[in-house]
Every structure is written in structure tokens, then in C-alpha cells.
């Protein structure tokens, strides 16, 4: 069991080290690594992508915890909790170390003129990424996943429109408030109609 745990720890350490861009960009590598070690099946991974969208936090963190709990499912509860935690630690350790180093030397790094010029150029590109994410998230909710057939969900469109309107009128609405509002609207609209 310890050997398996160490192996999984380093598998996720590797995933954490080599996946740039976060979010959906991480899925292919995670999929490849998990299938290679036969920790999860393809069907389990796809199912978990859906569940992960419904749980807080980054997808990579979610699937790390899930794998840790799932792979050791024949052990007692407390062991599963610890393995889930340990494997998630493996995933976040690389970024933790790298960003810690950057933060420690931030004054030197950010004042370097090459770094400064490079970072100054990137924001428009990021805004593009964010807009693409907006398109992706909204279209998926309203039209369904894009590798499946189109399944127009007008209720999702209504929820989107209401939340948008609330955010527009009530400018101070915090993101957390808007998330809870969306959930409540979901309960109401999918329940009543």
C-alpha cells in the first residue's frame, strides 16, 4: 500500500509540475497518467469531470483527492482521508515551491526589465483566455458539451440572464452571492418547470 501511495504521490507531483495553464488544459495529461497506472478507468474519469464541475476548487485538485480516496477504497475511512490528502499534496507541491521562490525574490524578478517587458505584453492574451473560458462555460451550460449533440437548455439561458441582470443592476453583488443565487435559481427553475 505504501508503495502504491508513493507512486501515486509522484504521479501527481509530475502532473502538478508539467501542467501549465490550469483548468481544462490539465485534463489530457491527467487522463494519460491515470490510465497508464490503471488507477481509474476512462469511464470513471469522464464521470468525475462532470462531478468536478460541481465541486469547489480546481479540477486537478479535485481529481487528485478523488483518486486518493478511490484507489484505497478497501481501506478504512481514516486511511482514505489521509491518502486523498497526501496525493493532493503531491499535486500542489511543485507550484507551491515555484511560487514561493518567485515570491521570495519578487522584488528582483519583477524589477528585471526583461521580465517586466514580458509580463507587460501578456495581459491582452490573458483577457482572450478569459473570454474563451466565458464562451466555453456558458455555451456548455446552455447547449451541452461540445463533443456531444446539441441539447438546448432554455432554463440555463434564463438563469444566466437573471444572474447577469442582477449583477448589472446591483453592481456591488459579490461573486459568492451570485454563485449562491445561481444555485437557488437552479433549484427553483429546474424544480418547478
Amino acid at each position: 500500500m505504501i508503495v502504491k501511495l508513493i507512486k501515486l504521490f509522484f504521479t501527481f507531483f509530475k502532473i502538478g509540475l508539467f501542467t501549465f495553464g490550469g483548468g481544462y488544459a490539465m485534463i489530457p495529461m491527467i487522463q494519460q497518467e491515470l490510465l497508464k497506472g490503471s488507477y481509474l478507468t476512462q469511464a470513471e474519469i469522464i464521470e468525475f469531470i462532470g462531478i468536478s464541475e460541481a465541486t469547489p476548487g480546481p479540477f486537478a485538485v479535485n481529481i487528485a483527492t478523488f483518486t486518493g480516496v478511490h484507489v484505497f477504497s478497501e481501506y478504512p475511512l481514516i486511511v482514505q482521508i489521509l491518502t486523498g490528502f497526501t496525493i493532493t499534496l503531491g499535486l500542489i507541491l511543485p507550484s507551491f515551491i515555484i511560487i514561493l521562490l518567485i515570491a521570495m525574490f519578487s522584488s528582483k524578478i519583477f524589477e528585471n526589465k526583461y521580465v517586466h517587458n514580458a509580463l507587460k505584453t501578456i495581459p491582452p492574451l490573458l483577457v482572450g483566455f478569459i473570454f474563451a473560458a466565458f464562451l466555453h462555460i456558458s455555451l456548455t451550460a446552455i447547449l451541452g458539451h461540445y463533443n456531444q449533440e446539441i441539447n438546448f437548455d432554455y432554463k440555463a439561458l434564463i438563469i444566466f440572464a437573471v444572474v447577469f441582470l442582477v449583477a448589472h443592476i446591483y453592481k456591488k453583488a459579490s461573486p459568492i452571492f451570485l454563485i449562491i443565487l445561481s444555485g437557488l435559481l437552479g433549484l427553483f427553475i429546474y424544480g418547478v418547470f
Partner: protein
Amino acid sequence: MKKLLDVFWTFFKIGLFTFGGGYVMIGVIHDEVVFKKKWLEEEEMLELLAVSESTPGPFSINVATYVGYKRARFWGSFFATLGVVLPSILVVTIISLFLEAFKSNLYINRFLKGISAGVGVLVFLAFFRIAKKIKINIFNGLLFVLGVVVSFFNLISVIYVLIGVAFIGILVGILKEKRRKLDDS
């Protein structure tokens, strides 16, 4: 100690309320860290965003580690990062243990479907807020379109595009400096 708790709690909240990952988090993080707590300047946030996209790992973890360090050195980093991942670890552990019940619960499903429909608004707000800070010109416009196309159609790994654009930024900087020197002499 109070500082550590504050950092931990703030990032715990961020971790708890960011469904849908990455770009949804930008809005929540921006609201908490820049507006409410004023731990980062708007400018710093943009720089950090760029750094975070160019380093491995999810954005929220990168921001937590960085901001935590600025607040209270190593332990600040440690508690901020722990805070931001703890909610997902807890929730996913519970879900994994009751996977079948979770999948088939009608109310949970409706609540979550509502969230997936509304969460796009948050991303749009983050987009709008950050886009306002950017000068409008042809070069930036092209970069924006490039970002949308590459990311939406998942053409190549974003890291190559980031490296390419960073390189262009450095080149432009060198050329400008050369021209300035020529003008001076």
C-alpha cells in the same frame, strides 16, 4: 497568528466558492484580495496572473502561495495554500465516499445545474474588469483574438503561446530602447 488566521480564512472562502475552476476564481479572488482586503494592487494582480499562467499548477494555488508570502512569509504561504485547497479536499472526500447518493440526489443536481448556468456571468465580469485596464490598439487586439482562438479551440498548449508572446514583449522592449538611444545620439 491573527494574520495567519486571516489569510487562512480568506483563502478558505475563496476555495469554497469557486466552482468551475480557474477563470471563475479570478472574479472571486479579485473581489476578496484586491477590493476587500487590499492585499494586492490592481497592477500586481495582472502581473501575478501572467506569472501564474506561465508557471505550473492551478491559478488559485499560485495566488494563495504568493499573497500568503507577501502577508506573512513562509507560514503565510503555507496557510493560504492549505486554506485554498482544504474545501475541495473536504468536499471531494465526502463526495467520493457517498458517490452514488450524491449523483442521484435531485436537489443537489438542480442546485449545481443552476451554478453551472450562472457561473459564466462571473467569468464575464472578470473579463470585463480586467479588459478595462488594457489599452486598445491593434497589437493588443491581435493578442486578444489569438488568446480567444487558441484557448477556445484548444489548438496548442497555452504555454507555447505564452512563451512566444513573452519573447515578443522582450524583443519590442529591446527595439524601443535601441531607438531611444539612436534618438538621443
